[in-house]
């Protein structure tokens, strides 16, 4: 009896401690988001004495101002186009690159793979000036092409999907070859469906990266018609210092789509990251 009590009590105590730590950490992470949302619902005048902790007379007027006057709607739309475009193209090239490295044998395969990986070691800032120059030379300054095309292929994507594809048993490729399926159909009918979690995780990473871009869009656009939401927010802060509540509303509008996306796909994200780490 005594044994069973001590055995059952210890995990409970440990769980309480674990949950306490988790709740504190979650609170630390969520607090800024909470303050942002609360203050975005206040009249600009209500913040004269610093931020409020609880909305007394909530209003959505800041959102209307941010959406129309500060063009946040336009910036969001641009960001959606850019992020969706980058994600779709990056996933396509990563699937093809990952497939080649996982399933094909060709000369200098190892060397090429190392070169792919090497691109991950080079910080984007190192090449950014040359890339901006290229975009100017191509006449793409202030265009969606400038925002999307430089990101349609990444070493990281091909690497991530190669790892995911390597988990597909070689026997399946042999079986498909005997069944009359060439590379293209094997990729479409077998590899992509089996590796869906890995591809979804890769797509989510691509989307997050594209959505949160700041420096590149700043350098290749000056026209509001092409600027993305992160730059819009910065502009909002510079232009609306008097009404910080509008800035808060714009910030909420900028992170809302990505927060919803993360909530919807969190399971795939975790599964994709741990895929291959454990069997099955």
């Amino acid at each position, binding site marked *: 009896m005594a044994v069973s009590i001590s055995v059952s009590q210890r995990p409970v105590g440990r769980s309480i401690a674990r949950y306490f730590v988790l709740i504190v950490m979650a609170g630390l992470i969520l607090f800024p988001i909470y303050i942002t949302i609360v203050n975005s619902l206040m009249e600009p005048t209500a913040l004269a004495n610093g931020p409020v902790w609880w909305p007394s007379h909530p209003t959505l007027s800041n959102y209307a101002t941010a959406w129309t006057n500060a063009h946040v709607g336009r910036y969001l739309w641009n960001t959606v186009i850019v992020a969706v475009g980058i994600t779709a193209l990056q996933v396509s090239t990563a699937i093809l690159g990952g497939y080649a490295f996982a399933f094909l044998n060709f000369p200098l395969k190892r060397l090429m793979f190392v070169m792919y990986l090497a691109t991950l070691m080079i910080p984007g800032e190192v090449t950014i000036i040359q890339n901006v120059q290229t975009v100017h030379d191509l006449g793409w300054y202030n265009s969606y092409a400038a925002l999307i095309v430089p990101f349609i292929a990444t070493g990281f994507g091909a690497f991530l999907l190669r790892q995911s594809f390597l988990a597909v048993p070689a*026997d399946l490729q042999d*079986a498909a070859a005997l069944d009359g*399926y060439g590379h293209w159909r094997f990729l479409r009918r077998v590899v992509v469906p089996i590796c869906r979690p890995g591809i979804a995780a890769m797509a989510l990473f691509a989307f997050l990266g594209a959505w949160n871009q700041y420096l590149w869009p700043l350098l290749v656009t000056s026209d509001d018609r092409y600027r993305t939401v992160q730059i819009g927010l910065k502009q909002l802060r510079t232009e609306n210092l008097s009404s910080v509540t509008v800035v808060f509303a714009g910030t909420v509008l900028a992170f809302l789509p990505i927060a919803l996306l993360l909530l919807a796909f969190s399971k795939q994200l975790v599964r994709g990251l741990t895929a291959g780490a454990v069997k099955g």
Partner: protein
Amino acid sequence: MSAVAFEGVTKEFAGGVRAVDSLDLVIEDHEFLVLLGPSGCGKSTALRMIAGLDDPTAGVVRIGDRIVNDVDPKDRDVAMVFQSYALYPHMTVRKNIEFPLDARKLPHAERNTVVQHAAEVLGLAELLDRKPAQLSGGQRQRVALARAIVRRPSVFLMDEPLSNLDAKLRVQTRVELVALQRSLASTLIYVTHDQVEAMTMGHRIAIMRDGMLQQVGPPQEVYDRPANQFVAQFIGTPPMNTFHAVASARGLEVADGAFAMVDGWAREPQDVIGGIRPEHLHLESLAREAPDGGALVVATVSMVEALGHERHVHCRMQNDDSIIVRVAASDPYPTTGEAVALRADAEHVHVFSTETGQRVALA
């Protein structure tokens, strides 16, 4: 016509590893041939070369009248069952079976009939809407078989298809596979390292070692007249006893004793490797002469294993070589440490060369 032939086929992998070495082998139309050997002997590579999944480095592979060295796997009219079954995990059983037909653009109605028929033959009709993960090992194996038979290929290739099944299911599936091959009337080439499967299933066995073919023949012939020491020891449980001996007019001499040989040894006495299967050895009392006037060999019992239906008496002969004697469970048996006399059935004594390990003809 779906005979399969290897003509001087060699397969060398990167790094100079020679998996198959100058293989010459003809598998007749409608034959059930078992490729047998220890792991790494090249049997699976040989099978993959028939399928077109590996290309020969040298030599010619024929299916029927065609040389298929440069023919795509899908155009060879062969189907293969893999050790892992290679089922597509994201598809239902129906989709898995249908997959090869899909690639061949078979009309929908015909496809359904073929799938339904294959499912019924293999007892899968109830499982068509399940995914592979929801099936037992035996059921998965049947799905793999169904996927192979729907194509009606002229040659079936099977790579250790029973090795992932438990012992009881393996025996049952063995019987079913033999029946299936008979009903399909196709050529079947079956790779295994399990000599029981080889003995019970195939019309002929081809035994390989280190990429080289050791012997081809009907199971009983391979068992009774192994071509070399390797084959002798690979086939049979427990394996054939082999030991150092001198072949002379007395028979196979071991220390002071000798095992009688049916035709004697007409040549000069010579060092050889003797071979006698455990069931062809008998325990005699030390005091008695051999009943047929033949010679005896003295040994000491080192261990007795009881298997229920029989006992394996492990003995050590005076030349320090060990030897196993099979004794029926109902027969008297000695105790550990006891000295015994061994007698062999003279017609079942084998002689192998000490240099090459090849069988030495006695006559």
